[in-house]
C-alpha cells in the first residue's frame, strides 16, 4: 500500500459560505482509513504554500475520498480553486483512529462545527445506537446536516445563538445530556475547537466517563518525523500526527 499517492479531483464545491467539500479519487491502491485518521493534502503546485495541510477524511466511497474543509488561510484558499481533473499529491491515512467503545458503553459523539468532518465517518461505522451532539455557532454554520440525518441515529443539535436546535453551547448540552441519563454508561468522542474539547473533557471527568478527543496542531510532515506537532500529555510530549490525533481524555494536559 502506498501512503504517498496522487489523487484526481472529482469535485470541489462550496457547501456553505466558508466550507468546501473535496472529492478526490486516488490513482493507485491506497490503504483504507480508519475513522479519525487524516491525510496531508497538497493544496497547490507551488512552493508557497510549501507544506501539505492536514485534513480528516469526511467519508470514503469505494473509489473516492471526501474532505470537508474550511477556508482558513492561504493553503485552503488555493485548495478551493482546485478544478475537476487536477491532480494533487496526498499522504495518508495517518495517525490513530477513534477506538471502538468498550463493551457496555454507548458512544456519545460530540462535534463542534467542523468537528463533524472527523466524526462523521466514525458515526457511519457505529451501530445506530449512538448519540451525536452537534453544536455550531449559528444555524448557517452546520455542515452536511442532510447527510447527518441519514445516519439514522439520535442527533441533538444546538447553537450558541439559539438560532437552531437547542440553545446554548454544545458543552452545556453535553453536561445536561449526561445528567439527564445517569443510568447509561457512555464513551465520549469529541472533535471541535480546543476550548470546547477542554470543557467537554472536564464534563466527562466530572461524570466519570471515559472519552477521546481529536486534537489539532501545526504540522510539517504529518507522519511522525519532524516532532513539530507536540502536545503535552501526562507522559510527556506526544505527536498529534502519530500517537494522535485521537487521544484518551485523561492523557492530555490542558
Amino acid at each position, binding site marked *: 500500500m502506498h501512503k504517498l499517492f496522487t489523487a484526481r479531483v472529482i469535485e470541489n464545491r462550496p457547501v456553505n459560505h466558508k466550507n468546501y467539500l473535496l472529492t478526490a479519487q486516488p490513482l493507485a491502491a491506497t490503504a483504507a482509513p480508519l475513522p479519525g485518521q487524516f491525510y496531508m493534502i497538497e493544496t497547490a503546485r507551488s512552493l508557497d504554500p510549501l507544506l501539505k495541510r492536514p485534513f480528516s477524511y469526511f467519508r470514503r466511497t469505494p473509489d473516492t475520498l471526501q474532505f470537508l474543509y474550511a477556508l482558513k488561510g492561504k493553503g485552503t484558499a488555493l485548495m478551493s480553486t482546485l478544478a475537476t481533473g487536477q491532480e494533487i499529491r496526498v499522504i495518508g491515512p495517518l495517525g490513530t483512529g477513534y477506538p471502538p467503545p468498550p463493551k457496555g458503553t454507548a458512544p456519545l459523539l460530540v462535534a463542534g462545527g467542523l468537528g463533524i468532518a472527523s466524526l462523521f465517518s466514525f458515526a457511519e461505522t457505529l451501530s445506530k445506537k449512538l448519540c451525536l451532539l452537534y453544536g455550531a455557532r449559528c444555524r448557517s454554520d452546520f455542515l452536511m446536516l442532510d447527510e447527518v440525518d441519514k445516519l439514522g441515529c439520535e442527533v441533538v443539535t444546538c447553537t450558541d445563538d439559539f438560532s437552531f436546535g437547542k440553545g446554548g453551547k454544545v458543552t452545556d448540552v453535553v453536561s445536561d445530556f449526561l445528567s439527564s441519563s445517569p443510568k447509561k454508561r457512555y464513551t465520549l468522542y469529541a472533535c471541535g475547537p480546543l476550548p470546547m474539547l477542554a470543557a467537554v473533557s472536564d464534563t466527562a471527568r466530572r461524570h466519570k466517563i471515559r472519552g477521546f478527543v481529536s486534537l489539532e496542531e501545526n504540522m510539517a510532515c504529518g507522519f511522525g518525523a519532524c*516532532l513539530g506537532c507536540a502536545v503535552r500529555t501526562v507522559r510527556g510530549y506526544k505527536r498529534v500526527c502519530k500517537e494522535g490525533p485521537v487521544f484518551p481524555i485523561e492523557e492530555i494536559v490542558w
Partner: protein
Amino acid sequence: MDLSVSIGRLNLKNPVMTASGTFGYGEEYTDFMDPSVLGGIIVKGISLKPMEGNPPPRICETPCGMLNAIGLQNVGLKNFLKEKLPYLRKFETKIIVNILGKSIQEYVKIAKALDGAGVDGIELNVSCPNVKKGGITFGTDQRSLSQLINSVRQAVPSATIITKLSPNVSSIPDFAKTAEDAGSDAISLINTIPALAIDPETWKPRLANVTGGLSGPAIKPIALRMVWEAAQAVQIPVIGVGGILNSSDAVEFLLAGASAVQVGTGNFVNPRATSEIVEGLSAYLQRKNIHSVSAIIGKLKTP
C-alpha cells in the same frame, strides 16, 4: 554510473543524505521509500540525557520555508544506543549521528560512546550554547569551535567527524578553515537561520519559543552562497544543506563545491524526496553523458 563520493575515510554510495532532525530515526519513512537507497542517514541530534523539547506550537510555515523550535527533543544517548541504533543498522547505508552538548565534555562523552558502538560518523551540531563560555554558541566563536573539534578529534581519533556550521556568522570561510585546522574530516552547512514570525491578530509570536530556525527553499540561495564560499576556503569535503527539494537543487550544490548533500525540510514536503534525488542525479548525469558524480563537484563556471 558512479554516484559514490568520499567524506573523509567514509565512502558513500551516493551523495544524498538526510539532514538531522528531519528523518526521525529512520522508522517513519519506510512507508514511503527504502532508506537503504541513501548515501547516508544523519540521525536527529543526540544529547547525553534525554531532552523533552519545547512547548507547542513548535513549527509554522513562512514564505517558501518553515520555522522550527523543536528544542532538540531526543531520546538521549543511552536510549539511542539501545533502541534506535539497532533498527537503523538494518539499512544498507551509512549512519551518521548528529550530536550536541552544553560543554566540550558532553560532546566528548557522546562521541566516544557512539564511536565505540560503531556508528559510521559523527556530525557536531555546534549551534548550541556553550555554558562554560557564558552561553555563546560554539558555532559563532572560532576559539570555542576549535577547542571543541580538537577535543572530539583526540577522543575519537579514527572516527569520521563532520562539523555542521552555523550560518549566523559574517565570514563562513573563517569558520570552515577553523573546522579544517582543528581536525574535522568534513563540514556540513547550513543549519537553520534564526528567525521570527508574528501573528498580527494576537500580537503573539507564532512559536511558543518566540524565535525558531528557518529552513526550506527560502534559504537555498543563502546556503548555496555559503557552500560555495566554504568550498573555496578548505580542502576537506563540504556537505551542502539548505532548501534542497529535488535533484536539480542537489546539482546546484554539487556545482558550488559540495561533495554531498543533505535534505531536510524537503522530506516533509515529499517523503520520497531523497530517493527521487538519487534517481534524478543518475538521470541527470546520463543525460549529460557524465560517468561519475565527482566530475561535476565544484564545476561552477565563474567569469
